[in-house]
């Protein structure tokens, strides 16, 4: 372990990252409350643009937490890739399979569901 003199404080960076995370969260909440019709009721890539915006914001937040709070940026490239690439690949794979199957079942089941009595 290096001694104290070599480590200078990163509090400035920490507060900056906190500011970014807060801003994104506030933007998410505002969008989630007003839900502008142009973003909420239109469709793009199989879902509403609003959902895509939320997903992108979430991934940006995850990036800031992992890179700067968990100090992934300071780890060796090999560790970073072993953890991040594995997670990203497996999660995308799993999510793709499950969501494709889910919407397929919806296509088949949806018309058969009885909604009038």
């Amino acid at each position, binding site marked *: 372990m290096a001694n104290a003199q070599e480590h200078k404080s990163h509090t400035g960076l920490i507060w900056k990252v906190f500011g970014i*995370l*807060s801003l994104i969260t506030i933007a998410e909440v505002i969008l989630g409350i007003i839900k502008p019709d142009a973003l909420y009721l239109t469709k793009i890539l199989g879902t509403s643009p609003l959902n895509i915006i939320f997903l992108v914001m979430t991934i940006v937040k995850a990036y800031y937490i992992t890179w700067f*709070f*968990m100090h992934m940026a300071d780890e060796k490239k090999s560790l970073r890739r072993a953890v991040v690439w594995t*997670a990203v690949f497996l999660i995308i794979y799993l999510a793709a399979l499950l*969501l494709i199957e889910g919407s397929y079942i*919806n296509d088949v089941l*949806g018309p058969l569901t009885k909604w009038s009595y």
Partner: protein
Amino acid sequence: MEANIATETNGETWGGGNKKPLGASYGKMMMWFFILSDALTFSGFLGAYGFMRFKFNESWPIADEVFTHFPFLHGVHAPMYYVALMTFILIFSSVTMVLAVDAGHQLNKKKVTFYMLLTIIGGIIFLGSQAWEWKNFIGGSYGAVQLNDGKIVQFVDATGHQIELEKFAATSHSERVQHTRDKGLWFVKEASLPPFSLDQVIEGFESNPEITIRIEKINQETKTKIIIPRAEAMAYLNEAKAVVKGANLQVNEYGKPLFADFFFFITGFHGFHVLSGVIINIIIFFNVIIGTYERRGHYEMVEKVGLYWHFVDLVWVFVFTFFYLV
């Protein structure tokens, strides 16, 4: 056989020796791989939630109508605000955690102690908030009627807003009392009774001409639940099986019981992580106070629990998105 045995330990056997694969200490590397596997577990749960949501895409409960409570604002429709507050509490406790790690790098025991304490308090507040959220969800807000095939029917007034059962249900005298073990069969339990009987609700519906019903199906154009004209409503209510108030693992007044199941399971599993994180933080906090890490010469242990704590925050970011926003 001596050739096969690692003899070069230099007193760091418990730290994994001097060989450091991937340039991280044994404990830190293993914490990273634990986090990786735990992330995959949570992805499995959230993926399963996504599967069910895609499957019932046309009739899934709308989160804005489910989580609408805020402390001290009784009866005010306040979606999102409370969960946003919870998110900020968790992000802030993440910040104090990373400040503790930062202070640990400078071997500043006083600062590490202070920031660890703030982190623990943040975690406890978050857990309390989650308990309150659960309480509101279990207690319910409007009440609904379940049909024979399990579908949920909710009541709306002339403006299309949901209306509480209390506002219209008949208050005729009912003979039905809660069964308890001392009044009847000692080996039989009964779930708590809904506030009104089915007959009272239907009687109230008939005597209030401005009320009608809303089904689970969502109008894809406006993304709101479809309202059935009053003339056709009785056909639905003739199928009614039970009055539902609140949510549990079997029934859910807001719609699909699956929504409640996944909500309880995923936020519960996350809350369990927060709880264990708080407990581990408390242990490390006392180790800091008694000077364990000062004597060891480094505060890497704070860094390792910090990783776990940030991971809990990271999971919440995704839970927040998939349960409340999307």
